């Protein structure tokens, strides 16, 4: 295998595609094993760290994407309209936070924690492909279980779910929950 050739091909593919691309897909296109492609990608992302480069190779779960360096944001942003950023509402972030940390989780659980109905927000998040239905709970009514997607990781710049910011869990809460469970 010609490593340089593979790197060049991967770079072309990622550049042309733009959005996060699945490792599976890359492996299929290049006719290589997934772990080989992953190794090449890791090597590539190291070389992008060079100060003269303006592009980074970022990994979000099982997907990879070329993005501009954050330190160049101010210069790149000059070209964009000011309303480019379309961030999520606090309600959406609340629901997303519950799903991210507690997944798989049902709508009822989300509603219980928030104290309000979350139907509309869940629909929006599903539309944005930040969450997906991961399965059905084996209980009467077969409620849907929600979980986050690779798109979620990409949106928040996380390599994996392990990179979610840690929460300061109140010790009293865990003891309360434990007591409730027992």
């Amino acid at each position: 295998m010609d490593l340089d050739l593979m790197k060049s091909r991967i770079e072309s593919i990622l550049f042309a595609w733009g959005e996060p691309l699945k490792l599976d897909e890359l492996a299929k296109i290049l006719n290589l094993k997934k772990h080989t492609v992953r190794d090449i990608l890791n090597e590539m992302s190291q070389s992008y760290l060079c100060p003269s480069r303006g592009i980074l190779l970022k990994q979000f779960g099982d997907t990879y994407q070329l993005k501009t360096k954050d330190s160049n944001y101010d210069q790149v942003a000059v070209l964009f309209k000011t309303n480019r950023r379309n961030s999520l509402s606090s309600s959406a972030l609340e629901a997303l936070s519950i799903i991210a940390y507690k997944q798989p989780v049902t709508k009822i659980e989300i509603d219980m924690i928030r104290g309000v109905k979350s139907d509309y927000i869940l629909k929006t998040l599903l539309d944005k492909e930040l969450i997906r239905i991961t399965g059905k709970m084996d209980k009467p009514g077969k409620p849907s279980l929600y979980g986050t997607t690779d798109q979620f990781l990409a949106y928040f710049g996380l390599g994996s779910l392990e990179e979610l910011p840690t929460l300061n869990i109140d010790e009293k809460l865990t003891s309360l929950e434990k007591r409730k469970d027992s």
Partner: protein
Amino acid sequence: MSYIIQINKFHGPFDLLFYLIETNEVNIYDIPIAEITEQYIAYLDVLQEFDMAVASEFVLMAATLIEIKSKLLLPSKEKKEDPREELVNQLLAYKLYKQGAEALQISENKESLFIGKPAEDIQIEETVSEQLSFESISAYDLLYALKGLLKKHPFEPQDDLIRIEKEEYSINDCILLISEKLQLLQRINLIDIITIHNTKSFVITVFLSILEMSRLTNIQLVQDKLFGDIYIQKA
């Protein structure tokens, strides 16, 4: 009006309750229920004035608070469970995920500094021509072909006079002409026929005759690609 702004910033009953607990600087494990309930209901009154639908979600919490308050007022002989416990539990769970939401917002802002391109709809022309049968050629395809042609060969009026031209070509003539050509060639490019005589009436007559011939299924119309040239061939 400032009320609306103030009220709308609460995303739910827990959010409001939390706000009250924080502004009153009270211990979450020892909530002065009477005081908090009173403040909560005061907010609720304002809220209901503006938005009944949203307010309904806050009413349940008000009822819960009142229930807890009344339980606390009742004298109890033995030491029972604190009626506030479940509420505190829920509040803490809410606090935890609210904290998660805030952390996510920071991540969101951080990541938005890395700019990625949205996927582009890159269309690579197929080298293998897909043959569209006549069934898939609509009247609109013919219209596009005519439009393209008229664009290439505009029929500008010679002067301001309105000319009424004699019908030089009949549909029958054209059908004969096309049939003759088809005897010699496998397929004919529509443009080649039309450009034999560069007059509007001829183009129209050719179109009408092609439509007539395809209706009688004497010919087949073939298009290699979308918006491509239309070919005439024997059926």
